[in-house]
């Protein structure tokens, strides 16, 4: 486990070995609430280190799907496998619980609600390390600094309570916390929806960087097509709990075959939006303003 300390710098080497092990396969997933079929036979595959978007209008079952993947909702039927290991049944013991947590982590939509108000940032990341890895105190401290640095947070933020942080900073904490378990797949359920537009761009840029460096697969749940276009390679379009279209993001979003997808695309106000450019512009602006890091 000591190797984990240098993970961010040293992953590219063992990416190939992980590759066999980290494919997320979802087959025929179903969940009904009362009589309402919230998720109805959803299947998709996420390659190791890949990036898959799940899009669809409000209420189409995106969140329910994500929650089933991380085990917060138990599916009625269907299978969820990471590297061939089934994870749709409830966990039976601690080892299984921890193994599953290391397969998949999740970043929640609202950073104002997803952090424990009583726990300072450093502690919040350290807890995860303590639970999952057998590190010495010094190694843990170093890893916390590294993780927070990865999401652009420094010493000052590390000792703050969530209430002292801005929305963007909180979401960075949530991302660092999720990465602390070194998951193979990171689920982001509307992870930028609660943030204002300029910060969305920064966070998306950050996520793209993390995927490049850490080789973690992204499952990006969103109703914002511009965001999905920017950050994903493949996309699944859900409607009423069913997959209506799936394929490479560029193809699906430029030449949708399904009218529903076309409808979704037509409802986007600004298609030419480029968060990377906005983030870059914003960084340039900050450099001019004197380099203060503010979200």
């Amino acid at each position: 486990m000591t190797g984990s300390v240098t993970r961010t710098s040293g992953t590219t080497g063992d990416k190939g070995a992980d590759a066999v092990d980290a494919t997320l396969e979802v087959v025929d997933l179903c969940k009904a609430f009362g009589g309402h079929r919230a998720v109805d036979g959803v299947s998709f595959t996420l390659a190791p280190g890949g990036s898959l978007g799940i899009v669809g209008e409000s209420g189409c079952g995106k969140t329910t799907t994500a929650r089933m993947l991380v085990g917060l909702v138990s599916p009625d039927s269907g299978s969820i496998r990471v590297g061939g290991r089934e994870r749709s049944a409830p966990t039976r013991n601690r080892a299984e619980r921890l193994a599953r947590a290391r397969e998949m982590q999740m970043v929640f939509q609202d950073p104002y609600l997803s952090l424990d108000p009583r726990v300072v940032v450093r502690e919040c990341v350290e807890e995860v390390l303590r639970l999952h890895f057998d590190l010495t105190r010094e190694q843990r401290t170093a890893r916390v600094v590294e993780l927070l640095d990865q999401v652009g947070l420094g010493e000052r933020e590390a000792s703050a309570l969530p209430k002292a942080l801005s929305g963007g900073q909180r979401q960075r904490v949530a991302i660092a916390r999720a990465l602390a378990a070194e998951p193979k797949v990171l689920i982001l359920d509307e992870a930028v929806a609660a943030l204002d537009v300029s910060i969305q761009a920064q966070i998306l840029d950050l996520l793209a960087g993390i995927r490049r460096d850490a080789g973690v697969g992204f499952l990006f749940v969103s109703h914002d097509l511009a965001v999905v276009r920017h950050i994903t390679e493949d996309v699944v379009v859900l409607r009423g709990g069913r997959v209506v279209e799936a394929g490479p993001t560029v193809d699906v979003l430029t030449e949708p075959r399904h009218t529903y997808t076309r409808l979704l695309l037509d409802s986007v106000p600004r298609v030419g939006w480029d968060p990377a450019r906005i983030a870059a512009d914003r960084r340039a602006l900050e450099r001019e303003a004197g380099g203060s890091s503010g979200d």
Partner: protein
Amino acid sequence: MSTLRIDREAADGAIVRRPGFGLLRALRQGPLFAGAAAVLVLLVLIAVFAPLIAPYDPDAVDLTATLAGSSSEHLLGADQSGRDILSRVIHGARTGLLGPLLVVGISTFLGIAIGVAAAWRGGWIDAMLSRSMDLIFAFPGMLVAILFVAVFGSGLTAPVIAMSVAYTPYVGRLVRSIAGQEKARPYIESYRVQGWSGWTICVRHLIPNITPTVLAQSAINFGYALMDLAALSYLGFGVQPPDSDWGSMINEGQAALLQDAMLPSFAPGLCIVVAVVAFGIVGEGIADRVAKRER
């Protein structure tokens, strides 16, 4: 996360108050809160240091002073047996506070355990625990206490056990509903995704986060328990004479009323009223602050 969750509990997620005591809410802010808190501190100090403060031995009989009025020798006069009323009232603060303290301590502990278990596990465990609490709630606590005294004998123990049981649903219902809401919060869900056990999440994170609200209820309960225990000993089911206790002092003092001596029953009565009102105001004040903080 999902704002679509139907929250059946929202309606009864409130502090339980007795009819008439809601009036104290009006006094929960400003100088009265500080005043009430000061009264409580004073009461505790008096109880702790009773032997040092009291001018006389509370049980010392001085027949020459029988039913003496207020004088420099006996500030609050003396009772039929010539015992100094001030000393008895001071010593009475000990049982007067110890009883409710035990009741509140035990019922808070049990209420949290039962409420959190019901909320966290749900299903038949919730159904069973909730029905049991409803059942206890439906029984008049005083009646159960009298029954207990009949079986186990008088003194402080039997009434305290009976009252602890009777007050558990006050706390348990509140805890069940707020713990249920807390469990659905993303920060608790993210602990589950991280792989923590339910036990650890509840003990380390959920309970500390709901504690302020529970404490408000417990402070209010303290006043009620004090009143109930005083009523029991007034009726002769609690602390027995000659031990000084406010409730039994009122009872003993009744005969003196016929001889125009007010103080033997009036002084302990006033103590009860002041203590109950002070605990009510402090409890309401805490509840108010908690509610404000959450908004």
